[in-house]
Structure formats: C-alpha cells, structure tokens
C-alpha cells in the first residue's frame, strides 16, 4: 500500500512543480486580441485570456513575468496593488463593425446597429471590448438590442464569421485576423474610442527576462509585427 501512495503523491508533487524550469524564456499573460501578433513575435510562453481574467491570475499569484492588457483600467488595478512595474502603452487599436463579407445588410455606421431587422452581438461589458463598444454606442446615441453578450471579443467575431450574427462591434485587428471571412465597417471618428494596450513586467516574476521581452516588443521587431497585424504603434 505505501509504495502506491508514495507514487501518487510523487506524481502530484511533480505535476505541481514541473514545467517551469526553462530560464530566460518569460511567461507572458496577454489579452485575447493580442493572440496572433504575440505568437508571431515569439520568444516567450504565452497565455491568452480576457484582460479581467489576466488581472485575476496575476493577483492570485499565477507564475508570470509579463502582463499585457487591452485596457489601462485593468492594468491600473495591478499597478495599485504593487504587483507590476510601471506600465508602458505599446499599441493602439480601433473599434470597427464586423459584418459578413460583402456587407449584405448594407451596414454603414453605428446608427445602423439600432435597426430591428439586424441580429447584433456585442462583447459583455465585463471585458474591455464590451466596455469600449458600449461607450462608442453611447457616444453615437444608438440603442442596440444585442442578442448575445459574448464572453470575449473573439467569440463575438466568431458569431459573425459563422453567419449567426449580422454584425458585432470588435477591434479592427480581429477582423484583420479573420482573413476575409468578415469585413470591417469603420466607425465614425467622432464616436470612436481610444483603445490602448499597456504592458508591464510582473514584480514577482523573472524581471530580467520580462524586461527583455518588453524591450523586444517596443523595439523595431515588435513594432513591425504589431503594424503587420493592423495595430497602431505610438510614434
């Protein structure tokens, strides 16, 4: 009996401690909308999730060296808790209306999303994309009866790509990543909201490896990767 218990215990302990051995390769927690560009950039182990979930993970002590969120409010929570070093804004994004290829419902502006004949989905207000969308719609004074509040921005886009929804408010870069299976309709400048992505080194992590990744992201390679995926890069 004892050997068996020992084996089980050993397996559990190994499972808990294993896997984190690599040095120099930081673990980066990043917002879902950064998936494609960060994977392109490489040089780290990535974990993508909604910004709120990222904040929770860092707060709960998940092993991480760098965190990048899709809004400054989420990052501010970590700064206030003293869990990260000073963040830097490394990219900007725009909101667009994602529609089916060829725009069959002739959607031209945010105003159109108030139409009764349209099936519109949004991201839930608990994730940044949902908050940004709500802000843009408020600025435009449009009342939208969303049929679903998706749990992250990519899920909202997926509903349009699958043909289940006529329109969704998402990031410009998400439509770019959809490779022609969705089309972007620009939002009028006066209703658009500023989407800013801050990145910060986690105080408890491997700071040297974390800083090296942030340097790469802010450097020429990072900027090029970001531009390639449709992000706007600060001058």
């Amino acid at each position, binding site marked *: 009996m004892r050997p068996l218990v020992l084996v089980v215990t050993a397996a559990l302990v190994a499972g808990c401690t294993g896997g984190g051995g690599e040095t120099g390769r930081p673990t980066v927690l990043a917002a879902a909308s950064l998936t494609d560009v960060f994977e392109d950039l490489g040089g780290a182990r990535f974990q993508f999730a909604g910004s709120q979930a990222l904040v*929770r993970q860092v707060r709960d002590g998940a092993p991480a060296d760098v965190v990048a969120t899709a809004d400054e409010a989420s990052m501010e929570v970590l700064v206030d808790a003293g869990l990260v070093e000073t963040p830097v804004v490394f990219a900007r994004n725009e909101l667009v209306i994602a529609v089916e290829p060829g725009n069959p419902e002739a959607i031209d502006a945010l105003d159109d999303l108030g139409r009764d004949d349209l*099936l519109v*989905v949004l991201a*839930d207000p608990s994730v940044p994309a949902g908050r940004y969308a709500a802000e843009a719609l408020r600025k435009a004074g449009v009342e939208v009866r969303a*049929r*679903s509040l*998706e*749990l992250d921005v990519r899920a909202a886009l997926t*509903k349009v790509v*699958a043909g289940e929804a006529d329109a969704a408010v998402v990031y410009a870069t998400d439509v770019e990543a959809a490779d022609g299976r969705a089309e972007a309709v620009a939002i009028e400048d006066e209703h658009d909201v500023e989407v800013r992505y801050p990145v910060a080194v986690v105080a408890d992590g491997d700071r040297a490896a974390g800083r090296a990744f942030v340097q790469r992201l802010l450097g020429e390679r990072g900027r090029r990767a970001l531009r390639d995926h449709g992000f706007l890069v600060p001058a």
Partner: protein
Amino acid sequence: MSRPPRTALAVAVVAVVLLALPLAGLLWRAPWSEALDVLGRHEARQALRLSLVTSLAATAVAVVLGVPLAWVQARVDYPGRSLVRGLTTLPMVLPPVVGGVALLLALGRRGIAGEPLDALGIHLPFHLAGAVLAETFVAMPFLVLAVEGALRSVDPKLEEAARTLGASPWKVFRTVTLPLARPGIVAGAVLCWARALGEFGATITFAGNLPGETQTLPLFVYVRLEAGDTDAAIVLSLVLLAVSLAVLVGLRDRWIGVR
C-alpha cells in the same frame, strides 16, 4: 459489514481529498455576510430561474427521447447497434464547446438543418430553446446509458411470462419492464438533470449569453468572475453545488438501497 482492507481505505481517503478539497476552498472563501445580498439581486435570481427552467426542460426532452432509445439498445438486436451506442455517447467525451460549434454547424441559421428551420421561422441560437437543446445534447447520454443498464438488468423471463399470459408488448413494457427499471430511469434522469444544470460550454457557444433568455447560472457566474465580482461568483456557485449535492446524495442512497 466486513472490515475494509487498509489499502482501499487509504486510497479512498486520497480520492475524497482530491474531489472535496476544491469545494472546501469555495466554502473557505465564501463571503457569507454578502450571500443574502447576492441572492437578492435581480440578475442572479433571473439566471437561477432560467437554469431551473432549461435544465428541467432538457431533462424532460431527454426522458421522452432517451428512454425509448435505451429500450431499443437494450432489447433489440440489430446490426450497427455498437455504432449507434458510440454515436449517442459521443457528447460525453466531446469538449462541450466543440459540441456547441457542432450544433451551430447543424442547426445555426447557416447550418445543414438550421437553414430550412430558419426559413420556417424556427430560430434556436440566441433563444431559450437553443439553451435547452444544448443542455439536452450534452446531458442525454448520461440518461441513456443509465436507463440501458437498468433495462438490461430486468430479467427477460419476467417479460416473457407476462407475454405468455397474453399481455400486449406495450402492456408488458408499461406494467413489467418500466416498474422494474424505474430506479435506473430515475437515477438516469437525475444525473442528466445535474449535468444539464451545470452546462456551460455548449450553451455559451450555441445559444449565446443574454440575460433572461440564454444566460443560465453557470454563464452568469463566469461573467461575474470576469467582472472581478468574485464574491457573487462564489455564492452562486455554492447555490448550484448545494442543489446538485442534495440531489446526488438522495440519488445515491436510493440507487444503492434498491437491490
């Protein structure tokens, strides 16, 4: 009762710890003082009500469709029976989110069966019926397997005896087979209901997340967690757990107490 071997006892303790420790974590972090406040919120009660409605409806559909299927599987010998059993159990091993995507491809408005349905004015995604369907898809296999097992344990000689005494097949099923298999059917239905109550992945993918229409309690819990409202998420998870636990404990005693 015989004295249990020590090895079994020791391993059983490890198993209990493995299964119960996360629940203890929830209880330990539970904000008891805010429980009433959370349960008083309109959205929480709405999600709880919706969860009860959809899970009971899914169980009803599963019983109506699943018991006859289980009977066919247990009593009729036909080629391809194993294949059918495999197909109808598949949703148990399929990641629920994949199940949701599959449902969309089949019954979404661009889906193979969904397009004609859409033309008839029947819409499932983003509607309550879609949430019921997603839960049925994921939970029905639990019922079918349990009921098939129960039907197999009914002695065919008893059914034969009834038949030789002149009872019609339907009468045999109703008065002999069904009563004998009843504990298994009840157990299967309860298991199916518990699975439907906790369903998340297929529901969010196929039916979406709209308060009052498709936002069941597990979805609402997830949204609260995302919003940083951990207290509400924990309280509502415990409500879900308490309901399920009460039912599962009751079921287990019943199941074991039968024969």
